[in-house]
C-alpha cells in the first residue's frame, strides 16, 4: 500500500470524478465543488511525487499550499460571481447563463 502508483491512481480517480462533475452538473455550486475535487486530485499528485521522488522534500508541500490558496481565492471569486448571477437570473442553473449576450 505504500507505492507511488497507488497514490497516482487515487489522484487520477479524484481528478476524473471532478472532471465528470464539471461536465455534467448544471448547478454552478456543484461545478465549483467539482473543481475543488480536481484541484485536490492535483494536490495529491504533488504530494505523492514529493514524497517518493523529489530530492528536496519541502517543494511539493509548498506547491500544495499555493494550490489551496488559489483554490480559496477562486472559491471566493466564483461564489461572488454566482451570487451576482443569481441576483440577475433568480437561478444558478448554468443553462440559464446562455442568455448572457454582448
Amino acid at each position, binding site marked *: 500500500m505504500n507505492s507511488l502508483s497507488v497514490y497516482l491512481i487515487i489522484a487520477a480517480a479524484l481528478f476524473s470524478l471532478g472532471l465528470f462533475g464539471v461536465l455534467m452538473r448544471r448547478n454552478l455550486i456543484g461545478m465549483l465543488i467539482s473543481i475543488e475535487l480536481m484541484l485536490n486530485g492535483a494536490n495529491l499528485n504533488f504530494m505523492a511525487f514529493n514524497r517518493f521522488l523529489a530530492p528536496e522534500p519541502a517543494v511539493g508541500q509548498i506547491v500544495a499550499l499555493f494550490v489551496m490558496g488559489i483554490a480559496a481565492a477562486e472559491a471566493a471569486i466564483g461564489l461572488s460571481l454566482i451570487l451576482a448571477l443569481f441576483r440577475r437570473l433568480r437561478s444558478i442553473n448554468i443553462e440559464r447563463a446562455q442568455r*448572457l449576450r454582448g
Partner: protein
Amino acid sequence: MMWLPHDSVLTAALTCATLPFLSMAVILIFTRAYPRVSCAISVSAITVCLGSTLYLLLTLRHAPEAVEYQWAWIISGDMVIPFGFLLDRLSLLMLTIVAVISFLVQVYSIGYMHGDPGFSRYYAFQSLFAWAMMTMVIAPGMLQLYIFWELVGLASYLLIGYYYEKWSASQAGKKAFVMTRLGDIGFFLGIITVLLGFGDLGIQHMNAAAQAGDIHPWVVTLGALLIFCGVVGKSAQFPLLTWLPDAMEGPTPVSALLHSATMVAAGVYLMSRIFPFFAASPDAMAVALIIGTITMLLASTMAMVTYDIKQVWAYSTVSQLGFMVMSLAAGGYFAGVFHLTTHAGFKALLFLCSGIFIHEYHTNDMREIGQGGGRKLTIPMICMTVGALALAGIFPFSGFFSKEAILGVLAGYPNKIYLGAGLLGALMTAYYSFRLIFFILFPRPSAEGAPHHEDHHSGGHHGHVFWTMAWPCMILATITLGLGFFQNELQGYLLGHGAVAHGHEAPEHGGHGLGHYLLLITAVSLAVGGVFFAYLEFGWKKASQKGFLSKFPAVEALFANRWYMDHFYRKALDLLVYCGFTNIFTRNDRRVIDGGIDGICRFTVGGGRAVSFLQSGMLQYNLVLMVAAIGVLVLVFAL
C-alpha cells in the same frame, strides 16, 4: 529548308504532302467568297501534285529499293517514332492512282458543282481529302499512317455530308464517320499491340521482322487481326458495310473519289502495305479471306435489286473490295493491288458517267434516266458501258485482267469453295452491272412520259459544263481500255527484283497450264452469261424489265433491305446501348455522381450543425471538446 534544292525527289514528295493542305488553308481562310479563285487554287495544287507524282514515279521506277526520308518526331526513351516519306513501288503506284483520280475528279467537279453555293467549301474539302490520302500513302510508319487515315475519314465525313442542310446527307456523313471509327478503334489497338510487342512502327521493319519471324506469332496474329478491323471499317467489309451505300448522299464526284482512290481504297491499301506482316499470320489471313468472301457475295446480291444508279455502283464497290481482300488474304499480293488499280480507273469512270446522267436528269433512278432519254448522251453512255464491261470482266477491258488474276489466285488456294464464290461473284457482277446499262439503253415508255427532261436535255448537252465533265470520263475510259495490257509490266514493276517477292506469288506465276485456260474460259463465259442473262431480262424487246428476283418477293426484300443488317444494328444498338450501357450510366449518374455530391452536401450541413452546436454558449460543451482534444493529444504522444 536549305536542303530543298539539292534533292528533287524529296522536293516532289514534300510537294505532295503539303501543297493540297496549303490550298485548303488558303481557300478556307482567304478565298471562300470567290468560288472561281478557290477552284483555280485547288485544281492547280492538284495538278502540281500530279506532276510531282509522275516525276517521282518516273525517277524511282527502277530504284532497287525503297527511298525513305525520316525525321524523328516523337522521342520517348529508346523509342523514336519518325515522320517522313516512304517511297517504294506500292506507295508510288498508289500515289499515282490517287493523284490521277483526284485530278480528274476535281476537273470534273468544275462542271458538276457549277453554281453550287458551297463551291469553295467543296474544293477546300477536296484538297483536304487529297492531302490526307497522299500523305497517308507515303507514310513510313503506322502512326503517321493512322493519323492521315483518320484525316481521310474526316474529309469523307465532310464531303458525304456536304449537303448538310439535307437531313439524310448529314445522317449519312455521321453514319460513315461512326462506323468507320468502330473499325479504327481496332486498328489503333492493333498499332498499340505491335508497339508493345515489337517496339517499332516502321512499316518496313514490321514487315521484315514478321517475315523473319522476329515477332512473337501471337503478337503478329493479334496485331494483324486488330489492324484488319480498320480495313473492315474503311473498306466497308462485312459487318461494317452499310455505311457505304448511304454515303451516296454526297455529290457524285465525291462518290467517285471515295470509291476509287481514297477512302475505301485506303483499307485495301493498308492491307497490301503491311502484306508481309499479314502473311506471317495464317490465322489472320484465313479470317480476312472469309470476311472478304462474305462481303463480296452479300454486296453483289444487294446490287441486283436496287434501282438507284449510284447505289448499284456503291454495292459493286463493296463487292469488288471484297474481291481485293480475298485476293490479298489468299496470298495474291499482286492480284489484289492490280485489281485495286484497275478498279480505281473504271469505278471512277462509272461514277463520273453516272454523275453526268444525274446532273442532266436530276434523278438517281435508273428507270427514270432511261425514260428521260439517257441513251442520247452518247459520250457518257459509251464511257459507262466501257466501265461496266470492265467491271463485268469482259475482255479486253482492264477489269478482265485483274479479276482473272484474282480468280487465278483463288484457284491456287487449297480450299476451292473460295474459287466457287469468286466465280459466282463474277457472274453476279456481270448481271447487275448490265442490268443498269440495259435499263438506260432500252427504256420502256413510262405512263406519264417525261417531256420536261427532253427540254432540259437539249439545252445543256453540248455546253461548256458538259465537256468539262465529259473529258475526264473519256480519259478514264481510255485508261480502262488500255490498263489491262500493262499487267506484266505492272507485275514486274510491283514485285520488282526481290523487293516484295516471296513465296506467296506462286499461283500467279505457275498458273499458265491447261487449268489456267479452263478457268479463263469459265470466268469469261460466266461474265458473258451474266450479261446475256441481263439482256434477256432487261434489254430484249419483249423483256419484262423485271428481274428473276421479283418472283421471290421475300428474297428481293431481303436483298433490298441489305439483309436487314441496318435493322439488326438498330436492334442491337437499342438493346446494347439504350438498355445496357445507358442503364449502367444512369445508375452511375444517380448513385455515384449525384450521390457523391449529395453526400458532400450532407456532410457540409452536418458539419455546420456540429460547429454551431459549439457556438451555443454552453460552457460545458466547450469543455467537453477541450477534454476530448487533450485525450487525443495524450493518445498521440503516449502511443
